[in-house]
């Protein structure tokens, strides 16, 4: 079978304009992206801050353990 050499050429990619028409009434799916955006960012902030706090907590717990150990050792030393 002879090759046809046919190719599909995409000259232009059309995008569907989803924006609301201007100057004309149209049904709309109203959103509140401002509030969603703010809340999503706040959520992320709270999550990351929690992570940071967890690291800090672990750090302090280590410090506390070391401190307790040190104090115990010092006590032992004092008691001879």
């Amino acid at each position, binding site marked *: 079978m002879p090759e046809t050499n046919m190719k599909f050429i995409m000259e232009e990619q059309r995008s569907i304009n989803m924006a609301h028409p201007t100057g004309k009434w149209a049904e709309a799916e109203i959103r509140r992206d401002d*509030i969603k955006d703010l809340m999503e960012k706040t959520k992320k902030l709270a999550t990351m801050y929690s992570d940071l706090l967890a690291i800090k907590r672990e750090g302090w717990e280590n410090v506390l353990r070391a401190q307790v150990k040190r104090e115990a050792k010092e006590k032992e030393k004092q008691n001879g």
Partner: protein
Amino acid sequence: MAEFQALQTATAEWKPHQIAKAGDIASMAKAAGDLAEVVKETLSLASAGMEVVKLLAQLQNINPLLIALDALADEVLIAIQNIKEAGFWYLYVDPYFIKNVAAEPAFTYGFEQLRNPAGDRLWMAKNELGEFTQTTTTPTQAQLDAKTVIPHLATPRKMIPGGFNPYEGKGVADPLAAMSPFPKFSVQNVITEFTKAFDDEGDVPRYRKAGSNPPKEGVVVYDKDGNAYDGWNPVKEFGLQLYDIGKAQEDGSIVKDYKAARKPINSKIAPGKPNILGQTSYVGGSGAIAIIIAAPSFDIFAETFDKFSKMFTDIPEFAATTGKGLLDSLNDVLTPARTVIKLSEVDTNYGIFEAGDVIGGEIYGGVAKILEVNADSVIASTMSTQQEVSATDDAGNIIRYVTTLDPNEDERWIDMEVVGNPIRQVDGLNPFITGDTVYEMEQRGTRTDDSPNYVIKGQNTVGLPKPERIYPKVGKVSMEKLEVLPDSTPPDFGGIQIKEIIPGWGEFFQILENFVLQLKGMISDSTAFIQDMIDMIKGIEKFLQDLIDAIVEFLEFFQITLPSTGVYALYLPNQSGGNDGIKSQLSGAGGIPDLGYAAGILFVATEGDVFIAGGGSKNPIDLLALVLGLL
């Protein structure tokens, strides 16, 4: 009917608005900002704090996290800034909840015309013998005018909403087909209100003197840009924000920033319609977004309107704290509160009222379906009458005396108390007035919303011989009292209130503040202090988790988009025609059907001097279009 009269003075007014500046959404935005600020502050202290714990292996990984957190906190603050810097005017048109415009009752009064069980009107048509016979065939206006067909009117004659209109040319169309029990306010009415609001000459911004020591009359005063004005009088109202000249010197040197040195001498008491520096007839950049919620039936309208209001609780009219919710208010229209009606002289010869019966007041038009009869309340009616009795004694003397009789000795008439569900009539919810006669009702056709049209049972048989007549149950109203609110009927309109999902915001930030203070004062390395610190961090971690859970729930709520069916938007981007330009575009825009039940909100913003939201527009309306999903 009173509810319609109450609406006659209602007007929709322009109000100023900044997104997320009111209600629960504003408190959430503030809380998010507080969190970001606190996080930023603790981060600056973090490195100091971490000095103590630098033995930690984690420390080497923590710097990128701190940098990312700092950037994120900035983003939150910018997001808040963006949604707060945009100022709007908004005009809210609501005939049903706030009722700032008057909805029209959709009916006219006329003579009650008999109907067959299917609801078709009955007519009397003249036959070839000149006799009138009953028919359901709707006559032509010519037949009515020639009186060859006449309406079969109820006996005795009664004026009712949607009755036969005897005026020429009015009698052919069936009023029942156009009647609705809910007051109507159409899409076109809303658009008319929108455009009308631009024409109100008196709706200009008004400022009244502020402070206890304003400049004296005649002193030169200044606007926000420093332009001088004479004619100041502290007892008069003016149309723009004014300032005094301000301090000439500060700390021994000439004031460089006159804006910081001056003091406002009046404050806004009314925002007026959209304006630039108080000029309502400006020619300049302005844009608008109009949203109309509209539906052909009231229940769909109520549902959509309720969802809309929940998404916009930053608009004061929708704020959850305003008391009765929107849906409660609409439900009052849809499902009125039950009522207890005390009936007297119920004639048992015609039957006793029972659950399921529909009763209606003869004169005042109250209609209700009986839900239950209070069994304990059924007693014989107390009736008494006096009768003169003559007695003749043996001597022939006639003695007359008056005796009291009980005409209800056989207990033919009884008293009873019934619990009824009021049925809305086209002229509103009519009460049961003491003394009115109540009859058993029957259905004759339906109204536009498919709700039944009730008439007195057997009224079609009034003219017939006695054996063929149908008599309704009958009684008299002795009293009506409101009963408890009804249980909500499914589907229940659920929903969350923001204030319910963010309990304890205030306490949370108090904890964080204390945390920061403690970090600042952290010098001690005592075991007790470290334990306190660990406990506090655990507390904050738990609180942050609660906060995240609340935000997740909140976001789930906001994931909903309003159903596009029933919500119409018109976006008028920034244009140079000022208020007049918006007005003409508003009235000229097509693409919206004229549905019967509608309410709407119109946002208008004027072009500013600077680009906002870091974007390519100087008009906040474009920012609003973006966040509402219109761009």
